[in-house]
């Protein structure tokens, strides 16, 4: 696959402008704190590309994923889908758009109703949106099973009869049932065995080419994110700290956090184990009470005076980093 070139030509499929999502946190009876799960994210997602979201747990990547497709209300900012502002849409007004945005979850087992047969699981979204019934629905289910490379005989079986990888295929088929344009994949392979992860990643890539899908891929394993993403957004404490084309972000990170995150990944080559590397110390601080200035400064080995007080903004053309003193 090549880098999407239409990014400057056409309008993005999804535009986020300063999107914020807060959760209340009870500090005392009267004093209510808030957790800034997503704090001012601006991001364009173009048709046909895959934007990977990475960061440590608690960085807000999953919340952002759910907010994008309006499974959560945003507290500030604007969300535009295909040029149409959907930020404040009611559930009813979202309904016609729902078919175009779907989600694939991390744990395929808990997101599938154990008492439903595969064909019911797959036909349910069709029926819910008044799409084909009866024989037509049957045919659609068959096609969906073909798409995710499951045998057609699986239609009358129950989720527990499948392995983890097959269940994730069912989850993908369900997401595809309504012919969506945008799919948010929330760590779709983290719960799977290593040997099966590759199957699912390949499948997601094939489906994207075949159905012209757009993905937002939330990833735990950075290897998988690198494999599947066209662009990557690195998140830290609710903010995007680096955004750019995948190879450039992974090969020449500009934000110290990205660099340290990448250095932390164990390399599957024992000859490289003695390489010089910096180990990122500490753990991500509590998003309820983020540090002033650059949020990364308490853990940053390169932090200087300015970082303590002044929050950097995401700058740079094509390959942006939110850092006063970017690397390279």
């Amino acid at each position, binding site marked *: 696959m090549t880098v999407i070139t239409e990014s400057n030509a056409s309008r993005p499929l999804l535009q986020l402008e300063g999107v914020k999502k807060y959760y209340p946190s009870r500090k005392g009876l009267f004093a209510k704190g808030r957790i800034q799960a997503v704090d001012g994210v601006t991001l364009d997602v173009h048709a046909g590309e895959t934007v990977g979201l990475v960061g440590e747990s608690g960085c807000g990547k999953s919340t952002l994923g759910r907010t994008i497709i309006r499974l959560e209300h945003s507290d500030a900012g604007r969300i535009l889908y295909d040029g149409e502002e959907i930020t404040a849409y009611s559930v009813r007004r979202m309904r016609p758009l729902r078919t175009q945005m779907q989600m694939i979850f991390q744990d395929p087992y808990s997101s599938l109703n154990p008492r439903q047969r595969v064909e019911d699981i797959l036909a349910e979204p069709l029926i819910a949106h008044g799409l084909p019934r009866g024989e037509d629905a049957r045919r659609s289910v068959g096609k969906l099973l073909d798409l995710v490379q499951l045998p057609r005989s699986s239609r009358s079986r129950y989720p527990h009869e499948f392995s983890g990888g097959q269940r994730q295929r069912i989850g993908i088929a369900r997401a595809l049932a309504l012919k969506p344009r945008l799919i948010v994949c929330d760590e779709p392979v983290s719960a799977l065995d*290593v040997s099966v992860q590759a199957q699912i990643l390949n499948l997601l890539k094939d489906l994207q080419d075949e159905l012209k899908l757009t993905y937002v891929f939330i990833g735990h394993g950075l290897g998988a994110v690198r494999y599947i993403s066209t662009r990557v957004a690195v998140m830290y404490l609710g903010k995007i700290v680096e955004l750019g084309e995948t190879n450039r972000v992974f090969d020449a990170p500009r934000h110290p956090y990205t660099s340290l995150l990448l250095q932390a990944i*164990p390399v599957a080559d024992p000859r490289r184990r003695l390489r010089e590397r910096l180990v990122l110390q500490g753990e991500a601080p509590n998003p309820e009470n983020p540090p002033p200035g650059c949020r990364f400064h308490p853990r940053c080995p390169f932090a200087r005076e300015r970082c303590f007080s002044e929050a950097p903004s995401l700058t740079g053309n094509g390959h942006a980093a939110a850092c006063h003193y970017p690397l390279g």
Partner: protein
Amino acid sequence: MSGYTLEVENLTVAFRTELGEVRPVEGLTFAVKPGETLCIVGESGSGKTVAALSLLRLLGKNGGIRAGSVRLNGEELTRKSETEMRSIRGRDIAMIFQEPMVSLNPVFTIGHQLTEAIRLHTDRRGKAAKAHAVEMLRRVGIPRPEAVYGEYPHTLSGGMRQRAMIAMAVACEPRLLIADEPTTALDVTVQAQILELMKRLAAGSGTSIVLITHDLGVVAEMADQVAVMYAGQIVETADVYSLFENPLHPYTRGLMRSLPAFGSEREGRLSAIPGAVPPLSRLPRGCRFHPRCPMAESICESEEPELQPAEVSRRVRCWAASGEIRRFAGRQGG
């Protein structure tokens, strides 16, 4: 003396279930030298966790060692009484687990749980036990160790809890530390910190480590020796450099190829291993890997291969691999 901290020979573990007996681990053989790290790598259902628990004989009511031997510094553990095993657990062999969030008792302080081990296995009592516990917390890199001593597990992050678990495990200077996926539940940044800590502690004390993981990256970082497990059996053992340079078993090769590479070849497809790990109740006949194996021949469907010596200090359980070896040896001889 054998010169090994741990020697496991032909270890088979059986569990009683409603559907009859299953053997999650069969014919396990490996050995670990003092100060050495052995990684057992495998996917879910490979039996790696059961193998670890069987070394401590913590298999519960329905499980037990069916055959084979486990020797710690030459002493046979399978014939020890439960009382004798209890004094070995936590003192000679310690273990840390995958989920630091649930592996500490939520209603006792960190200090209480630490000193419990110290009081059980050493002469330290009262202030001496506390001092040692605080020192262990400091050694594993926990900030404010005196304060953390009196805190409950829920106040600590996952990484800090895993550090506390490690402090507990190494408090009595065990000769063998078993770590069952100690970093799987943690962020990659915290994983790097924990792995570094384990390396440092082992290097300082000569403790041997059996590290169980599914992550080949962790194996490459940590291991001296590697045992690859599939469906309850070891399919390949080797030193870490030979294994990554030249994996002999098709399963090992498949695992390595299915990793999204970090090099330049991002384009194109990953080579996945087809199918899934078989459940214990439906193990295939012959070689357990043959339904997923690209090299399977007719013999693989009917005859189970043995774990056979391959190159120097390597073993592999595969008809094709050992056949190749034989042909290779034949050519060399002729």
